[in-house]
């Protein structure tokens, strides 16, 4: 599903942020991406999200070399990838329901077609009673769950999450990763970037450890 071969990344003429990354991620697997701050986790997620292209090496996703993709193909491929941002990035003027439904709305689906699905998903993540609230009225945990719901509503093949538990207490963090694990059981490939070691120890999922832009461990 995802294959990196000797991938390097640098911004402009700056130093190499990611160096000689080679790994493979199979469909339906669950991976933690970890490493100290500045090790390149977010940059690697950007490569996986197709918002950056590698400076060197080869990235293959869904069987296609990302360097060969034009803008339109890139956008179409991105629809198979869900993303949960560390800072949620919900649109403040939309309700929770509208934020979660956004990926379906951009596909041109009418509200009557997706309303039931979105409501069901919001119930599943525990936001059934908050679907008409705007993000400003949601707690950190609620925003995080709304962001997750938005990332999975389009049934992506891959779900990426950048420090999804960064604003949550340990108990809620575990519950959240359990939620991801449930999604993983439905076949979604999950990659969670986190630097919380306690969280990693709570789950027995493979870890990709980055150090200074290099893949130190991939088990």
């Amino acid at each position, binding site marked *: 599903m995802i294959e990196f071969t000797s991938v390097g990344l640098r911004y402009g003429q700056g130093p190499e942020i990611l160096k000689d990354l080679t790994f493979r991620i199979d469909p339906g697997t669950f991976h933690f991406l970890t490493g100290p701050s500045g090790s390149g986790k977010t940059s690697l997620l950007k490569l996986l*999200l197709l*918002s950056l292209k590698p400076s060197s090496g080869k990235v293959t996703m869904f069987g296609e070399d990302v360097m060969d993709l034009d*803008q*339109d193909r890139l*956008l*179409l491929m*991105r*629809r198979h*990838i869900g*993303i949960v941002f560390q800072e949620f*990035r919900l*649109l403040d*003027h*939309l*309700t929770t329901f*509208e934020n979660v439904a*956004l*990926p379906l*709305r*951009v*596909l*041109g689906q009418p*509200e009557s077609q997706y*309303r039931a699905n979105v409501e069901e998903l919001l119930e599943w993540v525990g936001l059934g*009673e*908050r*679907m*008409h*609230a705007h993000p400003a*009225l949601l*707690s950190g945990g*609620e925003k995080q769950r709304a962001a997750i719901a*938005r990332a999975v509503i*389009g049934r992506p093949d891959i779900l990426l999450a950048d420090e999804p538990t960064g604003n949550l207490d340990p108990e809620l963090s575990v519950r959240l990763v359990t939620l991801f694990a449930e999604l993983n059981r439905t076949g979604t490939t999950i990659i969670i970037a986190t630097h919380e070691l306690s969280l990693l120890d709570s789950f027995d999922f493979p870890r990709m450890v980055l150090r200074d832009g290099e893949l130190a461990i991939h088990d």
Partner: protein
Amino acid sequence: MTDTPRFPTRSRTTPIVPERSIAGRTLMLLIAIMTFLSGVTLGGVVLVQKSAIAWSSDVGREVTIQIKPIQGEVMDSNLRLAVSLAEATPGVASAHALTLEESQNLLKPWLGEGLDLSTIEIPRIVAVQLSDPTDADIPRLENDLKSIKGATLDTHAAWRQQLNTMAGAIVVSGLLVLALIVVATVLAIIFATRGTMATNREIVDVLHFIGASNSFIAGEFQGRFLLIGFRGGIVGGLAAIVFFLAIGIAAGSAGIGNVSAELGLLFGRFSIGFDGAAGIAAVVPVIAAMTAITSRLTVRRFLSQIS
């Protein structure tokens, strides 16, 4: 967890691009002003063109025979002869000699009231109405008039040419002004769109990350700008039509009796008519479409730059 009341399901979906994030009122006002200026310019061009056509047509349907007083010649018989020669010319509908009083009245605007013109021998005029200016045998009439001493024929050709040149210059100037207004409007829309895109960068990024195509994003912005363009256009277009109505009423009530009629003859009626109003109304969808297309192209360019 804060309790929030559950609102009933809303039938209207919130726009993805928030209305407040666009400098809507300012842009709408700007478009209204530009539409008003376009409408006034277009109306002015229509007025000038209509008046020029009317003048040219009126003047072209009439030629004038002027008979200067010459010692030994009898003016009244010369006038009668001139009338009969004119009436015998093909393409002439009628001819009549202006009375002495009518001729004196023609001089009053130039010489002022109170002057005793009976002591001066003034040239006399025969007004000749043509039934068909293109078929009238003017050379024959010119030739026939050689038999009358002091008679000359004025076809007003120089006046008409001057008039047409002047009207043409005004129309071309108006169209140039219109083109400049369009360019200024397009530039203003480009700046407003760029500002809006910068303000909404976060929304654009999120839409990109969830797989929205550039055309979808451009469409969301275009919809907002189309609405602003329509509103501004309608306000500006209506203001331009009201302006011409007010000018028409003001011009109609200016002057008394003959003065008003003469002003009308000289400058034409300040009425743009149905076709003029239709032209101004047509400016509204043009401005709205221009707003939408310009903003769409600007958004597409912005998106391709950040992609």
